[in-house]
């Protein structure tokens, strides 16, 4: 039996796919938003292709952020790496406080226009939530379980892989979820430096005073963010419930 919220999500997903594959079906809905003779459906490229490129940019940047943030969090929670904790905290915090727009402005002269400056901005911006959550997850494990893990004769690496990471996984996933959602929205500004993302649609709409473009670009990003957010949350819950949380 499907619950109502699940049904909503399935419908939203179906509508999104339909819109990306056959945008002209939705033309009558968007028509009232534009002036006479202006196109109501984005006509300077395929919406489907832009969406896939948008997702790819977010996926690459997030994957990089996960690897670096998780590695840092693991390093500073080992007794040998504890002294690096303040340093990595500040580094990751700088990444978050620097506005992505500023990162783009600084990165373009070095890497040129295109996808690279956007990837760098998203990567830096995505580090903090993953790092902080991984840190919380790895430092708040129940002492009795850690004691038992040592007592059964697990080596440091075995404790990390078999006990600490699996137990911290729901909290780590929550950090990844935050990071992904922020990146999905932030990626749109990459189109100001010619990265191919859904920002193109929004920027085109702003430039030609076409509200329909702005709305469709914004809505696709919003629906993607909501669906991915919910999917990751469901994954967290299913892992968490097995452990009786």
């Amino acid at each position, binding site marked *: 039996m499907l619950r109502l919220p699940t049904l909503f999500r399935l419908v939203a997903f179906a509508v999104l796919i339909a819109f990306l594959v056959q945008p002209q079906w939705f033309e009558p809905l968007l028509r009232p938003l534009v002036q006479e003779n202006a196109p109501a459906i984005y006509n300077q490229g395929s919406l489907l292709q832009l969406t896939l490129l948008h997702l790819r940019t977010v996926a690459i940047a997030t994957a990089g952020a996960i690897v670096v943030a998780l590695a840092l969090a693991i390093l500073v929670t080992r007794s040998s790496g504890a002294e690096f904790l303040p340093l990595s905290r500040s580094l990751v915090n700088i990444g978050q406080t620097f506005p992505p727009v500023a990162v783009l402005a600084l990165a373009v002269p070095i890497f040129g226009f295109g996808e690279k400056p956007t990837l760098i901005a998203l990567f830096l911006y995505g580090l903090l939530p993953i790092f902080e959550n991984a840190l919380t997850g790895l430092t708040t494990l129940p002492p*009795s*379980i850690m*004691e*038992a893990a*040592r007592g*059964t*004769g*697990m080596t440091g690496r075995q404790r990390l892989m078999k006990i600490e990471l699996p*137990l911290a996984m729901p909290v780590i996933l929550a950090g990844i979820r935050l990071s992904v959602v922020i990146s999905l929205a932030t990626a749109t500004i990459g189109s100001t430096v010619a990265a191919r993302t859904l920002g193109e649609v929004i920027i085109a709409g702003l430039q030609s005073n076409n509200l329909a473009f702005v709305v469709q670009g914004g809505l696709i990003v919003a629906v993607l963010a909501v669906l991915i957010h919910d999917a990751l949350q469901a994954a967290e819950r299913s892992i968490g419930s097995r*452990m009786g949380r």
Partner: protein
Amino acid sequence: MIEIEGITKRYGETTVVRDVSLTIAPRTVTVIVGTSGSGKTTLLRMINRLVEPTSGTIKLDGEDNRSLPDYELRRRIGYAIQGHGLFPHRTVAQNIATVPTLLGWDRARIEVKVTELLTLFQLDPVAFGPRYPHELSGGQQQRVGVARALAAEPKVLLMDEPFGALDPIIRAKAQEDLLAIQKHFETTIVLVTHDMDEAFHLADRIAVMDKGEVVQYATPAEMLVKPATAFVESLIGAGERPFRLLAIETVADAVEPGAAEGEAIGSAATQREALSTLLWSGRKALPVVGPDGAVIGKVSLDGLVQRAAGPT
């Protein structure tokens, strides 16, 4: 055999354990008691090197416990703690299989061992093996914790307040089970507790710790008759002494010739239980039956009163 020789543990200026020497005989239950902060848990944890001593040595069967890497040592020593410490993301069967898996046993052997242990602890292997720890009651979790500690057939089992989180009825049952399992596997058990009833019930020998030192290491009977210090005496509880003395020995040791009226008591019951029955039923003597159910004599109120008397 565990030989603890001149063990001291200091954290900075504070000495937690001071020059402790104990020899623990194989296949016995040794209980370490003391108030909180007496160093009893630290002493226990130095046996499997969860804590490294500042000075002194600990030998297991004549071998220094620092002669192999700490994780290999711990795989050979069972360890059960208060609140069980089960891994919440692993099933009961996987939890019990922890140490055998680390030791690289093959799957069939692990499965046989898990089934054997679950059965021994009165948990149906089919029903409980695939469950997660949070689906079990406190008493069941505790039994799985002990089963996990015993899975690799260690000669030594260390227990840190293993029954502390259990209610009195389940705790009594867990203690009986532990004694039965100790006889079954002939494990050397070192158990830490602050519960004197538990200590007197389980121990072959009791070590009393106070401010980091062992103030007395003796059998329960010796300790009752000759407490070494005022601290030991207060720990035993002056009002409890005669009853603890009776609780150590069985009715079989107090049987007198003759007959008595009324319901009989088994010879394996403790003398304290016999006294309790006598007082409650208002009789002067009880018939005693042996393990086969035949009457072997009587146990009398006067006899028990004499036995409960301390040295004068």
